[in-house]
């Protein structure tokens, strides 16, 4: 059995001021193992995306501890969290979030450069070709279809060979055919590289393809 990639220990997340607070997560505990593909499901507003943000170190929990490869990240500084993200984590969003004035290849290379890997055009081109985007390398996001943009976004999150992939409804803006294609790309990579994948989704069929399903309701694991 492999070790734990992610571990949430009694995590609570509260937004708002003293008088008007929203308790998003209410003391949840779970862990995700290396090589494991886990889907997080639940109704809107249940706290699924918050779990992704906490795991990525983009949000600070109100209480509890989060471990990434056994390192407690809850007390880390902004720059230490940046380092964790660069080394271990790849993130895929529902709305792609590509930089509009960079080409497909430049968007992918951006991730390499963040990790201080410069002039690795070949690697970015090769990955995009694998994703069927060899003919779109120099196209701007506005010149790509939704499916193509999402493939660029996934390539960007995988180019650094992360050990954890956090995907927030990556198929939410895609049709059925493109959705399955994206899932295949993510699953193949995860399986082939002994990576963990946390997949937030509303799609029951996709959730069923994962190793495990974590269901969140009212900020708690159901």
């Amino acid at each position, binding site marked *: 059995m492999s070790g734990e990639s992610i571990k949430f220990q009694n995590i609570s997340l509260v937004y708002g001021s003293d008088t008007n607070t929203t308790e998003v997560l209410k003391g949840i505990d779970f862990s995700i193992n290396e090589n494991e593909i886990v889907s997080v499901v639940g109704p809107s507003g249940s706290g699924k*995306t918050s779990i*992704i*943000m906490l795991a*990525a170190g*983009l*949000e600070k929990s109100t209480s509890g501890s989060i471990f990434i490869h056994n390192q407690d990240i809850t007390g880390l500084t*902004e*720059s230490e969290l*940046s*380092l*964790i*993200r*660069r*080394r271990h*984590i790849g*993130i895929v*969003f529902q*709305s792609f*979030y*590509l*930089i*509009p*004035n*960079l080409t497909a290849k*430049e968007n992918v290379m*951006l*991730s390499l*450069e*963040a*990790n*201080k890997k*410069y*002039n690795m055009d070949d690697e970015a081109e090769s990955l995009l070709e694998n994703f069927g985007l060899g003919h779109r390398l120099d196209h701007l996001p*506005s010149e790509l279809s939704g499916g193509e943009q999402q493939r660029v976004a996934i390539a*960007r999150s995988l180019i650094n060979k992360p050990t954890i992939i956090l995907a*927030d409804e990556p198929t939410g803006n895609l049709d059925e055919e493109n959705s399955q294609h994206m899932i295949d790309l993510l699953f193949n990579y995860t399986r082939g590289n002994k990576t963990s994948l946390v997949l937030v989704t509303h799609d029951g069929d996709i959730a069923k393809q994962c190793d495990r399903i974590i269901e969140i309701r009212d900020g708690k694991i159901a």
Partner: protein
Amino acid sequence: MRRSYKKLWVITTTLFISLLLLSLTFAIKQSMVDEISANSKELLGGDILIDSGVSPLDEVVIDKLSSLGTVSSTVNFFTMLSGQPGSSVFVDMRAADSQYPLYGELKTVPPSAIDSVLNRSDNPGILINENIKSQLSLQVGQEVTVMNTKFIVAGVISSVPDLARSAVFGEFAIISKKEFDGFDLRSENSFLHHEYRLKISKEQFEQKNQEAISMFTDDDKVRVKLPKDSTESLRRIIDNFSNFLNLVSVSAMIIAGIGISNTMLSFINQRSVSVAIKKSLGFSSRVIKFIYFYEILLILFVTSVLAYCIGVMSPLIANFMIPEMLGITLQPSFSLINYLNIAFIGLLIVLIFSIPSLYSINSIRAMSLFRNTFLPVNLHFSTRNIVYLVLLTAILVAYFVFQTRHQTITLSYFLAFFASLVIFYLVASALIATLKRFKGFNSNSYKIAYRNIVSKKSLAPIITISLGVGLTLLLTLSLVANNLKREIAENIPAKAPDLFFVSINKEEKGDLEEFIRGIDSEAILDFNPMISASFVALNSVPIESLVSEGNPSRWAIRGDRRISWLKQPKDNSPMVEGDWWESGDTDNLHISFDSSVASDIGIRIGDKVTLNILGREVEGTVRNFRKVEYRSLGTNFAIIINDAYASKLPYEYIGTLKSSLDTNKIQSQIINKFPNVSAIKIDRIISKVSEIINKIFFAVSAISAVVIVIGLIVVVSAILVQANLRKYNNLIYKILGVGFATIVKAMTIEFMLIYLSLIAFSISVAAIASHYVVENIFQFDWVFDINLSLMVVASTGIVTFLLILFANKNMFSPAVYPLIRNE
């Protein structure tokens, strides 16, 4: 609509500031013109002023004048005034009769002092201004000496009605005409100036006025001035300064225009969906453009009205800055014409800079709604637009050029300004092209900076243009000011003599020379004979009709000038054209001119020139031209005549002294021994000129800084209109693991790259412009001061960078949650 205006704050702010500057210029100019027009009789001192120069009018003429109204006679002259032993100053003295002043009020402390000086016959009294009082540490009641005569200080002058410039900036004193008559100065004293003012009663005013004027119509020795003439030089100064302010204002408005264009484009891009929906509902592009244009027009209307209202009230504040001695009180003055002028200039700027942005609406298509694919639109430059822009710009330039008497300078300024805009745009383009070729360093910060600069929405062009022009203007002014200060503080004192002597009788000259040799045998002395003369005609054509107001050598024909004579040309004014006269020709007048004066006026060798020498008109022949070096402050003359002809004229001497000994001691010994000789220390004059130049350049630089302020607002607004894009990009960087420090470093590198490319050209353009001004207009040697340039560049850079940091403060580490939630 309200939301639109919040987004359009930069248009509102920059338009308002630049319109305010223009309004202040118009309003203060209007108030000053109104004030001097309303007080033109006070400024002249009478209904008519008769200037008879070095000679007084005949008693018969004065009697005839007296029959037409009240006559007041004054004599102005320069002389030494001594206080305690060893302390003396060179003063502009006015000897006035008991009728003075005919108009306005001479204010003194105590108020009764004027009466005790001009009307009483007991102890001779003198009125001094504040400068004399402080320099000689004098008090009312103390004794001073003028021309060997003792005077009691009766009071201190607070203000004079007829704007004697020395009263405000120099040393000025008033004694009674009776005391002056006691000095028994001879009419050949070139520094005497007789003036007669006439106040005519209201009855038969026009008739008596005409009669008085006609008395002197055929008399070339006398100049008649009317109230409208008294304000001519003041109007010229006001015109020149307001022209400068107008040019600064319009420069600020053009920079503001860049902000308007950028903001409008961003505004339209943010509303591309709304525009597409309107088009899908059947609105034409033309109608939509007008909707946005009306919004801008409304902003222009509100800002121009507000700016003009503040401008109209500004004379009340300006009154606090006007020296009391001038006796001027400005009144707010509303003028619809002035407001329309300001609004018209604002409209031209708004049209020029909003047309390319508004026409981008043509590129937004309703069909984009179906695919939700909105690409950002760019400035639209069709052939028709370019024609509009050229036409509107030509109208703007013509408006300013045709309103000034310095048309060439104004046109050159605009050409230089537009050339600078193009140069800085090319600088930004060159930077982008260079960076694209050299992708450079393996550093995250550099890569981010590089991408920001080379991207389509790069801030490089807007920062380079708006900051570059302002910085260049400030650098140019600083370099010009520095060169002038250096010339006045270092170069001139090094070459100039230490003392000037004026009013030296020819009988006294030998004794004075011997006396000075006794003090310092090594002293360099230069004495030149001198008489007063005026330029009447060139080849029998009245000279006034040949030389325009704007002619750079007009000074040489204005009023009485001092002329001298020589046997041979001097080393410091060598002959450059023509031949020298033969010695001994006492019957014919031969004339030598300063070559630059001759060139400006159009005098050629062999021309016949009529001079009025001591009241007699004499025609002479132009024999040669000399290159005259005035910068040394030695004794030099624009007009020199042949010594043989001059030998029969009464004259006096002017002289200079350069000595290695203590000048104060020499001056005080000379004044004690020769009380009628005026000995003026040059360092006092230089420090006074230096002080005035410092004040002028401080004011000019402060006003010009408005261009930089507008530039900074435009830069900050350009950053803010890109706030969403920058925030979005920084968020992606953050998600990819790029830290806060890297993003700040990237922004620093981005600014440094843009600013470094900009300053090289700013310094170059400023160096060329200041070189032109210093060498050609001031005719001094130009020296480039690298330390000053770097100081101006560094301080502007630091302020700009801090502002950029401040404008970006919310974009460095944006919250992830709103983005992921699509908020």
